[in-house]
């Protein structure tokens, strides 16, 4: 084997795989964020805490003996009504005010703080590490990958594809895109816009919860886990284009690969500043991001 091939197999490829796992994880969290922004024009600052809520709910249910595989289905189903109630009970109360963006941003920021403190009170400040549902690892082309991370890549990709299919290829998705673009016109065609908005918010929250269940065995469960992850998710959403699902996928994969490569060639310390720097540059030169908004063609 040539030196270059060995370098790729033992140095570059493992690093890129780490980046890919992180990329899928970030995309899963950012998907809900971008759908909520694209449809409701709401920057959900509590999205990270909904991701944490999913992980904590899974943690709590696993203590009564529910298996991980059941939790993958159950937790998003529990999160759906939570998201629906938050949208109808909180977001809608300030949604129609003149300074909607500021109010919803502050409201969701406050909600996130409350949730984070509630996690600390109920579960304590220390991290919990759920057992890895799939032990062992696989080796392909000489590259070793833990089985659960491979599972995450496959399931994460399937979830991303399913969400894109629903949004872009179904009548429900057409309804959501229509309501995102023109609330009044969609309503005059019989679309129950308020329920679509609440449903989309709930769907975004359920996706965050699902990401919480999936990522807990890798990143652990602790009260500030949402805050830590959401920064990267916001960066991905901004660089990809706020409200664009395609943008989230492209930016998620791109930025996490940049992080991985920077960690290898410069220093891991520089990976975050460089990625956040890309976000700042993007906001300056192309504030709409790489792709357009959901429902905006």
């Amino acid at each position, binding site marked *: 084997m040539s030196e270059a091939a060995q370098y790729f197999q033992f140095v570059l490829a493992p690093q890129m795989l780490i980046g890919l796992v992180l990329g899928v994880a970030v995309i899963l969290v950012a998907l809900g964020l971008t759908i909520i922004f694209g449809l409701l024009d709401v920057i959900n600052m509590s999205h990270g805490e909904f991701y944490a809520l999913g992980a904590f709910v899974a943690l709590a249910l696993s203590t009564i003996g529910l298996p991980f595989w059941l939790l993958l289905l159950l937790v998003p189903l529990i999160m759906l009504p939570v998201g629906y109630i938050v949208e109808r009970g909180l977001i809608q109360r300030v949604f129609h005010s003149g300074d909607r963006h500021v109010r919803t941003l502050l409201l969701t920021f406050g909600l996130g703080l409350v949730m984070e403190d509630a996690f600390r009170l109920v579960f304590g400040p220390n991290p919990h590490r759920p057992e890895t549902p799939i032990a062992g690892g696989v080796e392909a082309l000489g590259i070793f990958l833990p089985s659960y991370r491979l599972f995450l890549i496959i399931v994460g990709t399937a979830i991303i594809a399913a969400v894109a299919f629903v949004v872009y290829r179904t009548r429900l998705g057409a309804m959501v895109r229509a309501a995102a673009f023109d609330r*009044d016109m969609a309503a*005059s065609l019989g679309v129950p816009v308020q329920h679509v908005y609440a449903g989309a918010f709930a769907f975004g929250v359920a996706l965050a919860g699902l990401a919480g269940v999936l990522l807990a065995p890798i990143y652990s469960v602790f009260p500030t886990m949402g805050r830590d992850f959401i920064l990267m998710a916001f960066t991905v959403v901004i660089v990809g284009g706020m409200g664009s699902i395609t943008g989230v996928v492209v930016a998620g994969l791109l930025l996490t690969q940049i992080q991985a490569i920077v960690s290898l060639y410069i220093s891991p310390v520089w990976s975050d500043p460089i990625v956040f720097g890309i976000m700042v540059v993007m906001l300056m030169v192309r504030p709409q991001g790489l792709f357009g908004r959901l429902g905006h*063609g």
Partner: protein
Amino acid sequence: MLDIRNLQTHYGRSHIIQGIDLSVAAGEVFGIFGRNGVGKTTLLKTVAGWVKPTGGEIAFNGARIDGLQPHRIARQGVGFVPEDRRIFPGLTVEENLTLGFLQVPGRTGAANRAALARVYERFPRLAERSGQLGTTLSCVEQQMLAMARVMVGEPKLLLIDEPSEGLAPMIVADLYAIIAGLRAAGCTILLVEQNLGEALKFCDRFIAMERGCVVLSGKADSQGDRDALIESIAV
């Protein structure tokens, strides 16, 4: 079919609709005319539920609809084709059309498909372009699509705002041929239009508005009423 009593609408502190009374009978084409900014579009938007009235009543087939959410008004059989067509970008012609199914939520899939087929029969150019993005259609085709997606729900009352806006005169004739077809099919139409010449050919009755009030009402087949209308609007 449509009864409006002492309707009042405000935008903030601006009093736009100032006590309008109006009755439209089933099968009638009713024209609303007036210069720009007199409240014609706001009147239609208020009936469609886009703007909440601040006073008065709107009754449709005997039931109050003022204050209802727009999708509930649509589901009662009131279709709205707004001035700027508002075709959804990123949605194909067929996706735009099938959204209109939600105007009749209890209808079966077969009935929906039959309604879509009837609309395609009426608008064959849309059938040819069903997979094309709605926003890539020509202006007149977009106007057809705006009307067709409402017609998919087979509304009892159609509110049409400035259909000839921005269209070339030859195309306007085509468009009014479509409206004539709707009228012949028994559709009740409330029509806001600047193009008096074309619109009056299809109207049964009309009103002229000035500063949010009705200043003239008449019959389209009365030459005296038509002359009064033209004089009223030309001043």
